[in-house]
């Protein structure tokens, strides 16, 4: 598991580095920028379909996105915990390496 610690540190650096590297920018979603790109390529294009449901405001959107992450993380934790428990019972001791 020691390896994972290094991997985690590296991933963290990769995520945090841009905050410093591109400081001053707003880190807007790339999909919003795609919208603008399309409008420069095809100024007369109008979207012909609207989202059936749009989260009312940024706060609700954040709520739904965190809900999505939380549900997923919960399942991952459950499954890994289950496997850990099983392997410990099988080996009769703590299986941490």
């Amino acid at each position, binding site marked *: *598991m020691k*390896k*994972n610690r290094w*991997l*985690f540190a*590296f*991933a963290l650096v*990769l*995520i945090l*580095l*841009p*905050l410093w*590297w*591109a400081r*001053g*920018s*707003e*880190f*807007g*979603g*790339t*999909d919003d*920028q*795609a*919208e*603008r*790109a*399309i409008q420069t*390529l095809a100024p007369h*294009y109008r*979207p*012909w*379909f*609207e*989202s*059936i*449901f*749009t*989260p009312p405001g940024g706060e609700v*959107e954040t709520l*739904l*996105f*965190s809900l*999505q*992450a939380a*549900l*997923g*993380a*919960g*399942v*991952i934790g459950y*499954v*890994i915990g*289950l*496997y850990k428990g*099983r*392997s410990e019972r099988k080996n009769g001791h703590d*299986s*941490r*390496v």
Partner: protein
Amino acid sequence: MMRTSRWVVIAALLTSYFFLTNEQDAYAMHIMEGFLPAKWALFWWGLFLPFFLVGLRRLVRTLKEHPEQKLLMALAGAFTFVLSALKIPSVTGSSSHPTGIGFGAALFGPWVMVVIGTLVLLFQALLLAHGGLTTLGANALSMAVVGPLVAFSVYQLHRRGLVSHRVALFLAACLSDLATYVTTSVQLAVAFPAPDGGVLASFLKFAGIFAITQVPLAVTEGILTVMVWNWLASYQASPLFEREKGA
């Protein structure tokens, strides 16, 4: 010695990458609702549906034959669910999110992830106004068809003995993530060719810029994928991991 030189190469690559990139607009993630002209929306839906039907049949069959894999499939689905909720900042000054498809594709082959990836996209299109229903065909083709196929093919490098197991897994996750967004820019480029330069110029515009945004995210996804794999392997989570013992 080998180890050290490998790290030096990686560090050098990263440094040059960070120095080559500067703040610029990027264009990625899923195609927004209504933003593909109707005929293209239909075209991608038509191309995607056969894959989905095959995927669904394979999924049902796998579950019937190996019900014990249900748990791992839930894990693969949850992994995709989490990763596509995480909008991660990139060096370009914009954010995008990884796909998390590579993990499941390496475990189960491409077909199961076709269904799982599509469900995640559907969830985001319906509840988050992220992506869309008219563009679901195109988005699912890039993330839930091209993604898993690329991941699975890359993962075969390990089966052939060309690279170690974890390197193959890392590359599979990383490249399937990138391939998804390259596909997205092809889809946008053919729908919106540039007035001068046509489809190619438009593709370069979409791909050249967003690929840069996605590179660090793809690497992050590769790392996270290997981490989850390490956990599972250390608990010998399932027969799928048995062959890997001692590797």
